[in-house]
């Protein structure tokens, strides 16, 4: 006999992501990251537990108000968004990426380019 209560929760988690607010949020995040919606949903289902998933829209709203206030570059790549508010990445990994993006911005002198490169890196990190 296996674990009594262990069950595949992916379907239940997918049901949570079906509500209109979740759909619009996921498509917006997918747009920001430049990835396909099903991929992002898959990553969310894999990395977040059900309470996080239910709470996604409220957490995103809080990030819009509170998160990454002082740092323009961190807000552009969503440093706190993807680690604290929508926990898709490891904080250490994010710190490393942020440093990389920062040096890149200092070298090239254009924060936009560096931010888009950073988002690329985040995307790769989420997809793996």
């Amino acid at each position, binding site marked *: 006999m296996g674990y009594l*209560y262990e069950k595949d*929760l992916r379907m*239940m988690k997918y*049901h*949570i992501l*079906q*509500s*209109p*607010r979740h759909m619009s949020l996921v498509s917006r995040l997918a747009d920001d990251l430049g990835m396909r919606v099903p991929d992002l949903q898959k990553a969310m289902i894999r990395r977040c*537990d*059900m*309470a*996080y998933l*239910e*709470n996604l*829209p*409220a*957490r995103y*709203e*809080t990030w819009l108000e*509170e998160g990454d206030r002082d740092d323009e570059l961190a807000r552009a790549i969503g440093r706190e968004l993807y680690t*604290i508010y929508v926990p898709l990445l490891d904080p250490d990994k994010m710190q490393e990426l942020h440093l990389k993006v920062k040096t890149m911005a200092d070298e090239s002198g254009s924060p936009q380019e560096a931010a888009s490169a950073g988002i690329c890196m985040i995307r790769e990190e989420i997809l793996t």
Partner: protein
Amino acid sequence: MKKLVDVSIPIGPVHPCWKEPVRIKCETSGERVLSAEVELGYMKKGIEKIMRGRPWQEVMFLAERVCGICSVIHNMVFIEAMEEISGISLPPRAAYLRVIVNELDRMQSHLIANFSYCYTIEHETLAMYLLDVREQVLDQLERVTGARINTAYMIPGGVRFDLMEEDSGALRTALREIETGVKRYMKMFSSGPLISLRSRGIAVFSREDAIKARVVGPTARASGIPESDLRSRHPTYIKLGFQPVWREEGDNFARVMVRFDEILQSIDLIQKALDTLPEGDIRGGGICKAGETAYSGEAPRGELRYFIKTDEYGRVVDITIQTPSIMNIEACTHSMLKGVTSLADVTSTFISADPCIACMER
């Protein structure tokens, strides 16, 4: 979630301390909880999916049955959102009656939350006392609306039944009795040495964390965020001179005491509403129209938001319900439980945030 340690303790889905099925997996080192994970899905009914394409007279009942404990506020927020969409004005008497029923419902909800907390810390005597007071509150709710739990009291443009003169007299006497009861048990709770040993300084949730996790309701007000009470923005409550109650400690004790304080405050509000109850009609009429809105109200557990879109016949096209339990349970399991020193405190901490799984999953 990654495995941090070798001991992973599952609590639930059927557990004596919570009445609804939810499963918490605690990663512990010794008895200290390092992290916790929630497993839901035992109550997912898909209410938002059923609501689509239905007129208000059906969605009203579905909204009530999102949560059986705080059913009145779900009804109220849905109906007020529909009124905002369609521009229906409310007779003043109906607005006051809504407040009376809503506050009665808040009282019974807080009483059952505090009952659960006392039950969880194994103080069954106090728990039973509180349950007895709750029965008195439910009697009054039944007297005003005709039902104990799912009252179906509010409709667009008014309420269903008026409050008779003799009923309001009975309500006043009952409120005085309830007040003496609640004050007595509140004193028992706040001065009991064993209770404070098990409640004070446990699972402290600071103001910064509370803002970051966006907790709402009594959980937020216990951490010192008085502006989280949306009643101070509701027009009828402003007329009644509403002032939120709050505390700074942010531990289990503060969360329970805030609820006790709010019960007393609700009694005051009802008495004030009864004193200034205007005469007049209780129904204004009005037909639901097309529109889109996001409407929030203060449920017993915190901010309740309805995102509604209707078509030209007043039927719901798209609806999302953001219940307070979503934020509270999430913050409780991921922030408050982290660092709790004993597994015995896990259940009491979880209950102190007043979780409502039926709300959370819908």
